[in-house]
């Protein structure tokens, strides 16, 4: 499937994917949980559950709610912590084939730097994805990703300690102008941008008169957000020269081509993994078949060719 291969240029060379299908952070665990539903080798890569320096217990329950064409979550970034990931999960992931991208988050720049420094030396980690949709404790709790200077600060801090690894920054759509944040991250040295994280949302129950989530406000994902993601990817791809990875509501090969058409180099599959855990493994072959049908010679030939 040579036509599916994607060579993403970055300052350190080329980030080579066997195909443009990646699993999105938070929907694919640490990778190993899906192994009985398909070969991880079939994927272009996978992005781990967000990792923090120390284990995090996450938010109170309830944390999830199904909504029409989507879901709300407020997990609160529960994770096993960097050390246990390196010890228990990373050694079980395949070394050849899918790129293992470690998603990281922290509440201050020192922790971001330490995460980057440790993971940049971890065998098997191919890239870092920075979650900037988390509160910046040093700046009164505003999200890093909602303010251009803070977003640039995190990007630079991670970049400084990321060694030979490319750094992806995952943008939040919950901003007035996503291109402003995108430019700030690109100028600060980001190698790629992932668009988008979840949309801020809420649900209530008229019978119990309660919020659906204990934290009241959560993040919306799933098919419902795809038009927003597509718009963001298109805008960001116009605004910056670094490669963009599309994420948000992608279920099918046709969805993938839509994101490539508006300028994405690769895509991440998220909430769709919950409908059918085996689905993602079939997407590269389905994408290949659809490209044949539409006479698309390669992902590169189709990227950004919107009329």
């Amino acid at each position, binding site marked *: 499937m040579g036509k599916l291969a994607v060579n993403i240029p970055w300052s350190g060379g080329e980030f080579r994917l066997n195909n443009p299908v990646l699993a999105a952070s938070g929907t694919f665990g640490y990778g190993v949980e899906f192994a009985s539903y398909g070969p991880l080798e079939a994927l272009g890569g996978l992005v781990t559950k967000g990792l923090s320096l120390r284990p995090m217990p996450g938010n109170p329950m309830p944390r999830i709610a199904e909504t029409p064409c989507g879901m709300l979550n407020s997990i609160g970034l*529960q994770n096993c912590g960097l050390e246990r990931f390196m010890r228990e999960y990373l050694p079980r992931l395949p070394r050849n084939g899918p790129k293992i991208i470690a998603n990281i988050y922290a509440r201050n720049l020192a922790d971001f730097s330490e995460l980057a420094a440790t993971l940049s030396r971890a065998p098997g980690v191919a890239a870092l994805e920075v979650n900037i949709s988390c509160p910046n404790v040093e700046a009164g709790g505003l999200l890093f990703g909602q303010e251009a200077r803070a977003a640039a600060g995190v990007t630079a801090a991670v970049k400084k300690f990321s060694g030979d690894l490319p750094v992806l920054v995952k943008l939040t759509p919950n901003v007035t102008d996503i291109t402003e944040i995108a430019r700030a991250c690109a100028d600060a040295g980001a190698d790629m941008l992932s668009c988008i994280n979840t949309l801020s949302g809420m649900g209530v129950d008229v019978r119990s008169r309660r919020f659906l989530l204990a934290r009241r406000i959560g993040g919306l994902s*799933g*098919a419902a957000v795809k038009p927003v993601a597509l718009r963001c990817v298109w805008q960001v791809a116009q605004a910056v020269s670094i490669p963009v990875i599309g994420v948000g509501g992608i279920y099918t090969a046709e969805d993938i081509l839509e994101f490539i058409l508006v300028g994405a180099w690769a895509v991440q599959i998220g909430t769709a993994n*919950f*409908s059918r*855990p085996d689905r993602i493994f079939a997407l590269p072959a389905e994408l290949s078949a659809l490209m044949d049908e539409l006479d698309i010679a390669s992902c590169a030939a189709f990227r950004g060719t919107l009329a």
Partner: protein
Amino acid sequence: MPQMHLCSVRALVPLGEGEKRGFFSLLLEGCGLPDWTPGQFVMLRPESWSRELPWARPFSIGRWDGNGLEIFFQVVGRGTSLLAGLRPGESVRIFGPLGQGFAREENKPVLLLAGGMGIAPFAGYIPRRAGAPNLRLCFGHRAPLACYPYAALAGNCLSEHFPDERPGDLPSFLRRMEELLAGNAREEGLVLACGPVPFLRAVRDLSLKHGARTQISLENRMACGLGVCLGCVVKPLMDDKGRNRSRQPVPPALEQGLPVPVCSCGPVFWADAVELDA
């Protein structure tokens, strides 16, 4: 290993007095024949469901043999309402068997405590121990008895049921549960319970009071069923030395202090190992 199976509806049978009560048995065929343990569950999603309902739905395995997979459900929301409209021949995807089932202590007296649709996993448990002299079922229910798979089970164990229709019904059910539970504890047996959380709390409290060894099966809302979304978690009960407070051996995940997914670490837990009061 859990696997994906594409199966089809053999029959959807309303239980009780017709469909209006919303209790059903769903029999699927073509689902393979894996090894499974009573207390485990499957995630189920009809092929006809669009992206409008992104999640599969979890159901206890009632029976899974050469004749297919049987689950029991009650209509409680959007998903189960749609399941109630399934027709024979329709395609349904399931993945499983998932999670950790009940302990299998063949030689111990076993007391099964079920509240409402919490009887479902025992439909899978009782036939595996049919005729065992010391297997007992105590069942509390609000809907008429025929809405539940009770009659078929009652013949295979010592069984009694308690309708909850009038004030006073619930206290007498609880009294009887306590008697049975205390007796089971004296014989150093095993108690297995499934039902709504307030019911499980009562079972947990009685178990602590009498020193019974009790496992409970939780039914938290789930999205993935695989332990990755962390939407269905429950907190382990830890002591001040950072160890799980259960008097029974617990899996390593319950010793780490972080909330654990009910789908992959449960749905069955020792009653003294997890927090039910949050």
